[in-house]
């Protein structure tokens, strides 16, 4: 059971602060949505959590500062899926997903049965089993997003960080990806996802972190975070709420420029 804790995390590009003192802790079994307007510092924060950029403050995984965890060990603990992830060679889907097993393999070592099982499982979870032998460059946008997600799932890391996994997908594939992320979380992992779609974030996430100008504006269950006041303050947008099947639905409705 693995948890992650950020304490007073800061990150800046030159003089421009991107993340300014964010603290939170999150444990296993949760899908946590990281939301906020463009430029709020979501990508910077998730890249800091993945130890991809220098940052101030502390990030700990299970109480150990990330910089004290070895590179390989960290790669097995925390999987990361970048926004608009490039794939530079036309691998087959299965070969692409197999790259997720790299942190588990020694040099010149082929794939073990454990690796093969993890790949099969990731393909199945992302509903990509039938596409295993297809070259990645022949996939549609939705299939490609699932293949890339399967690559990250194949790491079988207890913590999965994903940056805008459903941007540029149609509603069907957005819901599909959110279901996969939630299923992976409910199987015992911690998933932190950068999201723009507030409706889907509310529907699928157990918890939301709302960022504005590098600071945490709100943190809690979606119903508490996505209140009109917060969304106005962060996005300059008014929302309408609706209840469907006993669940609250939040829809961004109109711009509010006279704050």
């Amino acid at each position, binding site marked *: 059971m693995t948890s992650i804790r950020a304490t007073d995390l800061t990150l800046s590009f030159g003089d421009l602060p991107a993340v300014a003192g964010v603290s939170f802790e999150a444990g296993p079994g949760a899908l946590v949505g990281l939301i906020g307007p463009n430029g709020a510092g979501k990508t910077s924060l998730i*890249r800091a959590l*993945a*130890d*991809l950029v220098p940052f101030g403050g502390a990030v700990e995984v299970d109480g150990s500062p990330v910089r004290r965890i070895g*590179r*390989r060990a*960290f*790669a*097995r603990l*925390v*999987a*990361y*899926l*970048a926004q608009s*992830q*490039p*794939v*530079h*060679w*036309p*691998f*087959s889907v*299965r*070969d692409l997903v*197999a*790259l*997720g097993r*790299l*942190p588990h*393999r020694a*040099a*010149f070592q*082929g*794939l073990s049965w454990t690796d*093969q099982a993890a790949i099969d499982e990731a393909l199945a979870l992302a509903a990509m089993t039938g596409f295993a032998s297809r070259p990645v460059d022949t996939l549609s946008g939705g299939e490609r997003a699932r293949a890339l997600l399967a*690559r990250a799932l194949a*790491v079988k890391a207890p913590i999965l960080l994903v940056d805008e996994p459903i941007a540029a997908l149609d509603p069907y594939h957005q819901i599909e990806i959110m279901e996969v992320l939630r299923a992976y979380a409910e199987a015992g992992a911690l998933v932190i996802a950068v999201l723009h779609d507030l409706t889907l974030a509310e529907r699928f996430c157990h918890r939301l972190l709302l960022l504005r100008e590098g600071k945490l504006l709100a943190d809690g269950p979606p119903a508490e975070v996505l209140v009109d006041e917060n969304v106005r303050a962060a996005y300059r947008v008014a929302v309408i709420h609706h209840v469907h099947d006993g669940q609250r639905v939040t829809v961004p409705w109109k711009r509010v420029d006279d704050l």
Partner: protein
Amino acid sequence: MTQASNTRIALVCTGLAVAVAVLFALSIFVGRGGEWLPATRDLDPGVIDIILYQVRLPRALLGLMAGAALGLCGAGLQGLLRNPLAEPGLVGASSGAALGAVVVFYFGLFGGALAVPVGGFIGSMVALALLYALAGRGVDVMTLILAGVAVNAFAGALTSLALNLAPSPWAALEIVFWMLGSLADRSMSHVIFAAPFAVAGMALVLTSGRALDALSLGQDTARSLGFSPRAATVKVILGTGLAVGAVVSVTGMIGFVGLVVPHLLRPVVGHHPSRLLLPSALAGAAVLLAADILVRFPIRGPELKLGVVTALIGAPFFLHLILKTRRSGE
């Protein structure tokens, strides 16, 4: 990497190794005009020994080493730069070696048989240091490519300057002939000079396979999979500089092998950089040994230079490649 593809790579490598062994033997026994030694002529056994051991063996060994280095480093660089059009010359080691050799010719520094290789190798190391200074600590692919272009252009300009100012036509001709690339008339001391650097450089590239695989998903993902893009960059560039610098200093410029060989193999072993490394080394050796046997069959006149043959075959292939890439990009 499935079990099946592992088996396939093992098969490919075995096949290529057999081909290399056969071509290596042919390189030792086939002479100019296809003359077969020792069978064809009645020669003194002592002379035959000299031809086999002091002329043909070093030539075959150099072909093996140079081909393997060029093929392997080509595959490694294409993986590192995530660009199928990358080739070993990109890091500037070849043009640096040419400049170093030219300086030796120009100033008449003929301090023994190894003067040119030593000068060439120093030149390639200077080029590598310059590349490092230009590209800096970053691992940005575009910066690296541009720095390589700059180093190549500068070394090329200085080489042209030396040719321009060459004290005698003879010196200029000597320089041009060396730059055409050849394995002929090299001795065992050439092999012994180049081997340690070539082997060390190839070891650096060969052990970068997994990092190169990870880099095919970009630097962030490579890092998140536990690999340092910077370490991989240093290993592959330094390895290529050492291996290619060492062999080119001895053989002169041999183009297109490093560019073309990985492409010949991708349809067979797949696109993973790690899967291409060893087969590319073997196929590079096979291609260069074969080309070096080919140049011994001149239609008339002097023996063809090896670099001329690889360029004659490689350039049209390169064109085909660009057209294919453009078509698939449409």
